[in-house]
Structures are given as structure tokens and as C-alpha cells.
């Protein structure tokens, strides 16, 4: 019984929130890693691409809600998602045409592209705020819980409760589907193989007749899709506020680098690693330990770090990994 209670507390406060957050980070990190692998620069505008995509999805959701269209128990935002992705893809293709293509033709050093992306980031930053404003929006509708604390307690008779929000479950399901689709695309389709070939060796790919502009376009479209999906899931699960998307850029980059930049599998592993460390290190374990080892009475809360230091955790992991495995856990390209 006590072990069950400990497990429920662990699931409720650590595992479920960390898994949902990890999936959101992993989707974001996949976009970053894809751009790094194929276009060979770290795209700092990715966080704001997520914000822009989500803002579009929210506007479309409001439109759908006004028309009386809903997805039943699922959030309406899911219906708005495809069009949101399309519009975001248009925007990033536009920025590629206007900004990055110029530097690519110049064969500019990666650091110049990175700086250009910082500029793009600030422009997108402003664009998102012009579009939707700086306020906080909640746009999740439909059923809020798959199982809530009260029902769980009544069902099991345990004193500890467990809640699973529908947005958390949705995040995990959508993230897994998107990841499967992405790997299928990269490994099984001709375009995916072309992208990987271009990533491995640009000159050889050109020699074998691969159109580089097409590969670049495809990469941007996929990155825009990943960014919009990640942003929308994050916004559904928590709430949308333009500034927060700027802040999660840091853990996203940490996830991508820890996993190995340019390696999609690494991005996923990195996302979950960063999320679980952030939550586990700042979680006070006193209640879990209380159930498992009732004879042991700790003086404090058994919390390694205050919750204020959450963001610091990703950087500590980043530093440790870079010290011992500079190319990341999954052997990505060296930074």
C-alpha cells in the first residue's frame, strides 16, 4: 500500500509533468537539430517560430470557435493545426528567401548565419506581439482531465491522488506520432534520403543530382511543422504567452546539444533527459521517501535545489555533457 502511494505521488508530481514537458522539448529540439544537421547553423529564431505558429493556431482556433466548430473532447486547436503549420511554413520559407539564402550563396561561415538568425528572432518576436499581443492566453477547450484527483481517490481508495490532464496525454500521443512519422520520412522516402545525403556530404549530394534548394525548402517546412506542433502542445498544456517561448529556447538548445546536434534520436533523448532532470532535481522527495521508508525522518524537504533554479539545471547538464562528450550523448556533429 505504501509502495503504491509512493508510486502515485511520484507519477503525479514527477513523472507525468516531466514526460509531457520532455515531449514538448523533444519536438522543439528535433526542429533545432534538423536545421543544424542540414543547413548547418543553430537557429536561434526557433523559439519565436514556435510562438508565431502557436499565435496563428490560436487565432484560427478562435475563428473556429466563433463558427461553432469543435473537436468534441479534444481541443479545437487540433483542427486549426494543419492550416497553422502551412502559414508558419510560408513565413519561414519567406525568411529563408529574404535572409538565409543570401548568406548560403555567399558560403558564409555558420557563425554569420547564427547571428542572422538572432536578427530574425527579434523580428519574429515583434511580429508575434503585433499579431496577438503580449498577454497570456488559454485556448484549451474540450475535456480537461482524463482522470482527476477526486475520481482517482474514489476509484482506488488510496489517500494520494493522481491527475492526468487530457493535454498531457495528448502531448505525449501527438509527440510520439510525429516522431514516428519523421523517422519514417527520413529513412524510407526518397526526399528523406535526399535530406540525409545532403546533411552527410553536400558536394556528393549535389553530384548525385539532388536539388539543394528543394532540400532546404523541405527542411524549413518540416522545421516549421515541428515548431508549430511543439508550440501548440506547450501552449495547450500550460498557456500561451509570447515571452515564455523565448525562455524555453534555452532548455530546447540544451536538449539538442546534450543529445548531439544534428542527431534526431539524440534530440528526443536530450529533451526527456533535460525535462526529467529539471523536475527531479527541484522536487522535494520527502513524501515519496516518507512512504517508502517511514522509519527515516528527514529534517527538511529533501529538495536538492529550489524551484527558482530550474533553468540552471539544463545548463549544468549541458556543461557536464560537453566536458566529457563534446559531440553529445548520441554522437552528433561537433559544435
Amino acid at each position, binding site marked *: 500500500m505504501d509502495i503504491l502511494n509512493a508510486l502515485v505521488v511520484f507519477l503525479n508530481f514527477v513523472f507525468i*509533468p516531466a514526460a509531457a514537458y520532455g515531449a514538448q522539448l523533444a519536438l522543439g529540439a528535433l526542429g533545432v537539430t534538423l536545421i543544424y544537421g542540414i543547413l548547418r547553423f543553430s537557429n536561434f529564431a526557433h523559439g519565436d517560430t514556435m510562438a508565431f505558429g502557436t499565435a496563428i493556431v490560436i487565432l484560427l482556433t478562435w475563428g473556429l470557435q466563433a463558427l461553432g466548430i469543435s473537436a468534441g473532447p479534444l481541443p479545437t486547436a487540433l483542427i486549426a493545426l494543419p492550416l497553422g503549420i502551412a502559414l508558419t511554413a510560408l513565413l519561414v520559407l519567406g525568411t529563408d528567401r529574404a535572409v538565409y539564402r543570401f548568406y548560403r550563396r555567399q558560403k558564409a561561415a555558420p557563425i554569420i548565419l547564427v547571428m542572422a538568425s538572432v536578427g530574425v528572432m527579434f523580428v519574429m518576436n515583434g511580429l508575434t506581439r503585433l499579431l496577438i499581443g503580449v498577454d497570456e492566453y488559454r485556448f484549451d477547450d474540450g475535456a480537461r482531465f482524463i482522470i482527476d484527483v477526486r475520481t482517482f481517490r474514489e476509484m482506488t481508495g488510496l489517500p494520494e491522488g*493522481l491527475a492526468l490532464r487530457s493535454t498531457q496525454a495528448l502531448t505525449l500521443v501527438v509527440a510520439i506520432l510525429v516522431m514516428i512519422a519523421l523517422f519514417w520520412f527520413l529513412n524510407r522516402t526518397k526526399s528523406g534520403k535526399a535530406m540525409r545525403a545532403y546533411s552527410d556530404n553536400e558536394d556528393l549530394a549535389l553530384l548525385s543530382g539532388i536539388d539543394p534548394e528543394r532540400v532546404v525548402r523541405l527542411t524549413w517546412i518540416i522545421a516549421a511543422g515541428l515548431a508549430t506542433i511543439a508550440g501548440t502542445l506547450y501552449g495547450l498544456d500550460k498557456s500561451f*504567452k509570447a515571452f515564455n517561448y523565448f525562455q524555453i529556447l534555452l532548455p530546447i538548445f540544451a536538449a539538442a546539444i546534450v543529445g548531439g546536434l544534428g542527431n534526431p534520436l539524440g534530440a528526443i533523448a536530450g529533451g526527456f533527459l533535460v525535462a526529467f532532470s529539471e523536475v527531479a532535481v527541484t522536487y522535494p522527495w520527502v513524501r515519496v521517501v516518507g512512504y517508502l521508508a517511514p522509519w527515516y525522518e528527514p529534517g527538511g524537504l529533501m529538495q536538492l535545489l529550489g524551484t527558482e533554479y530550474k533553468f540552471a539545471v539544463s545548463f549544468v547538464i549541458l556543461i557536464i555533457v560537453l566536458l566529457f562528450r563534446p559531440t553529445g550523448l548520441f554522437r552528433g556533429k561537433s559544435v
Partner: protein
Amino acid sequence: MKKLLLATAAGALLAGAAGAEEIKLGLSLGFTGPLESMAPGMQQGAELAMKEISDSGLLLDGSTVTAVTGDSTCIDAAAATATVERLIASEGVKGIIGGMCSGETIASLENVARPNGVVMISPSATSPALSTIEDDGLFFRTSPSDARQGEVMADVIMERGINTVAVTYTNNDYGKGLADSFQAAFEEKGGTVTTNSAHDDGKADYSAEVAALAAAGGDALVVVGYVDQGGSGVVRAALDTGAFETFVFPDGMVGQALETNFGSEIEGSFGQNPAAEGEGRETYLSMAEEAGFDGSSAFSAEAYDAAALMLLAMAKSGSSDPATYKNSIMDVANAPGEKILPGQLARALEIINGGGDVDYDGATSVELVGEGESAGSFREIEFKNGVMEVIGYR
């Protein structure tokens, strides 16, 4: 001869005018910044009192009062200091209604008002630090200190039979001040505070903060935050994870948004905010409605009282010089004397001019205690059937 006559006539006119003057009062309020939505209501409240007194023609031989506004920004102490400096040095105001937020008020009081010997009456700065600040008798406030709210909140919780609580506060002067004064009061009364930890406003996710609060435990969660900010986020995360079911809300959280956001989910939760009941408040609300603004806007009534107190003190001391009238503020605010409600300022001036005493009650039942701050009455609220209900005043 003609010139001499003219000069005499002019001299006589000047002598007559010396009694009646144009008194300027500065309004240093946060017209921009995090509380910008409250500032207009406060300005209108203060100006209402000034107009009432000007129109009566009874203040210091018919002196008129005008308001000069300045933006204190609420969060930028340097900007607030510059604003008050301008009001005093170049506008020559005889007193300041303001500042709005505690940090900014402390800065402008210490750097400008006190060195220049100008009286400040703040309608809304509630930090306990202002109770003990070195002010040469120049600083007053028509709102209660948060130390007082801490005690009231401790009483409210105790009376419901709750003895252990967890506290989370918004990471600023207001949050920390109120959370600490509450903890001291609650522990003194024999309660236990399991944890007293900060949350930062403007984050997307408060599950980590709530996990820590849940681990510490407690029968209720005291949320010392802002309802439009992290406070609601913490409540949402606590409800979702089932960490707490009963919440205690101090003034920053008591708002209509709470009912809209949570409704029946926080059934049985309770709280309190500074607000007076009674005739004074009712009169003020209808006066404000007549003047075309919403008198129930936060701290609007306190601003009316601040301006009225300052001007009545001038009448009482017979001078608009801050060094003189600062000593009369406590006199007009407290007993003995005839009770004065909003709209009766002309009557108050008549009594004062006739040598009598007044006890200004105003829109917020003003009673200045200690170093010159409102004793404060609090409104207790509770959520019943998804609706926020006022259950009493204390």
C-alpha cells in the same frame, strides 16, 4: 496723485490676495506600469476632494486647489524620485498624494520629500517597512500596513480551525512583506507554517512550485500573489494535481478574475482585502458615479481621503506650509470632533474655521494609528456555490 492712488489701490488688492492663494498638490501615481489600470480611479478620487474644497471657498480665505500629476511608474524608483523632484522643485506643490507602490514610495520619500520637508500621503503603499521609516512626521497613508493584514489573515484562518498552512508569495516587496508578517502573526497564535516560498510571476508553468508546496503539506495554501499573474497559475496547478483544496486569498488575489477562473473549484476557500463598509463608502460611490467614474476601483476612496485629510489639515493649522500643517493631520483624522463623511468637506471647513474639532471618517472610515497609517478595516470573503460572497467586515 493719480499714480499714488493707483498704487494704493493695487497694494490693497495685493494685500487682499495674500490670504487666498492657489495651492498646488502633486499626484505621484503609477500612470504607466503594472498597476496602471488603478491610477486613473485614484487620480479622479483625489481630484474630487480637491474640487469639493475649492468650490466651497472656505479653505484659507478662499484659496483654490489644483492637482499636478506625475508618473511614478510603480516599479522604477529612479523615475518616481525624478517625478516627485519635479513636482516639488519646479511645480512648487505643497504636498504629495502618492506614491502608489511601496518601493517607489520609500525611494521618493527618502530622496526628495523628506529633504525638502514636503508631506506625502500615500493612498496605496502597504509595505510594513513604511511604518517604521524615518520620516520627520511627513509621511502618512490612508491604507493599512500589510503587517495588519497579516494579523487579520491569521485570525481569519485560525477561526476556521485550520492550524497548518503552506505559504507561497509573489517574489517582490509586497509579497515577501505580507508573507513574512503573516507567518509571524500565525506562529505567534500557535499555528504552523510548513513552508514560506516564493513564486515568480509571468511563468507558464507552476507545477514545480506546487510540487514543493505539496511536499511540505498543510491544510490550506495561502497565496500571496496577484490574481492576473502567477497567483492564479499556482492555484490552477494546485487544483490540477490535487495538492490543495482550500486556499486563502489576501488582497492581491481578491478579484473578479478569481471567480471567473475557478468558480466552484475553490468552494470553501476564503480571504480578505482592505475595504470599508458603511455610510461613508456608499456616499463616496454615489458621488463618484455622479462625477462620472467608478469609485469602487481599488484605492480610489483612499485617494479621496488622502487629499481631503491634507487640505483639512491645512485649514486646521491655518497654513499651507507643510512644516506647519503636518502636525494637524492626526488631529483632523481622529477623535475628538464631529464625524465627517465624503461630501461634507464644506461643513468640515466651516467647523474648523469656527474653531471647532472634526474627526474625518471619509470614504474608508479613516482612523490613523501609530506613525500615521490607517488602522484599516477588512472585508472577509468566501466562495460559496462558485460565487465570491462577502461574509463580514473586521
